[in-house]
């Protein structure tokens, strides 16, 4: 990614990780354009290309947080302009669901957010990433418990399969 310089002061939030799930039709194109224009992005952000934000499931968002991200953002098309008609509406609701789950167990819901933009708005994408970086920079690092917070899974293997980094594959096999 072009321009690795932090925009919020050197080292202030450099140890944080933000995973940005970007729609291929808009946000990723906007990110590409902003990189071509050599606009610096915060070094905390990691882009993940998605075919549509409608593909983002609550499991993607929560797994990212559980596996090391301090914040996750979903960047999709403007509402009503989804390439697949209503994928981003699904994403909005799933992000809201994840926020409610997080709030329910005592985690700041701001760690998961949804942004919308069109492909022709690289500044909006950069502003969204910087906003997310600012919010996450203001929060403490996300604490995680390896033992599941004292609460065990109903059967063995769940936490370990997550730790092995293949929760989605395991979930698909079981479903």
């Amino acid at each position, binding site marked *: 990614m072009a321009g690795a310089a932090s925009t919020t002061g050197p080292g202030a939030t450099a140890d944080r990780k933000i995973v940005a799930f970007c729609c291929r039709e808009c946000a990723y194109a906007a990110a590409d354009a902003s990189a071509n224009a050599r606009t610096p992005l915060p070094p905390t952000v990691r882009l993940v290309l998605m075919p549509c934000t409608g593909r983002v499931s*609550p499991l993607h968002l929560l*797994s990212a947080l559980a596996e090391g991200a301090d914040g996750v953002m979903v960047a999709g098309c403007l509402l009503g302009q989804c390439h697949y008609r209503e994928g981003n509406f699904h994403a909005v609701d799933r992000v809201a669901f994840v926020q409610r789950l997080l709030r329910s167990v*005592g985690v700041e819901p701001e760690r998961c957010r949804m942004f919308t933009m069109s492909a022709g708005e690289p500044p909006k994408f950069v502003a969204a990433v910087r906003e997310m970086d600012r919010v996450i920079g203001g929060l403490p690092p996300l604490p995680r418990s390896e033992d599941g917070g004292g609460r065990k899974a109903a059967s063995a293997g769940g*936490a370990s399969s997550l730790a092995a980094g293949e929760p989605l594959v395991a979930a698909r096999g079981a479903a």
Partner: protein
Amino acid sequence: MPLTHRGREILSRVPAGTLQSTVGVGCEIVRHEELCVGCGKCAGNCPSGASERGALFDVNQLLDAPADSRRGALGGALRRLMRHEPDGPVEVPERVTVYRTIVYDNEKCLGCGTCVRGCPAEAIEARPPQADAAPTGSVHAAAPGAPAPEEVCA
């Protein structure tokens, strides 16, 4: 509970020996909650409104789900992040399709088995209708004087 309430009522109006289908009115519907993904297809297909998509979702359903299930994978991630026990049920937005609590009302159920055919997780099972004293699979097989099923359906 071999028959659902409504199923028994409907079967009482059906001539003896005419029903032998394993999936038809009067089946015993067994729901395996641990396999359910909460998609709500059973609720969408249900002709009698016995299954409904609940508006609230109990977070403990994720945390207590078997680890190798779809819900368990999400619950495992949530368990690593949680700082305290869930406050209570959360409201589920309209377009979140798979994390639903399905409210099943046995009193309304016809036992038709439509939900079984629609279930993608094979979490619902329809057991063939049978009288309490007749473990043979045919509803009225044990009824005295009933003709053999082959004769009826020939």
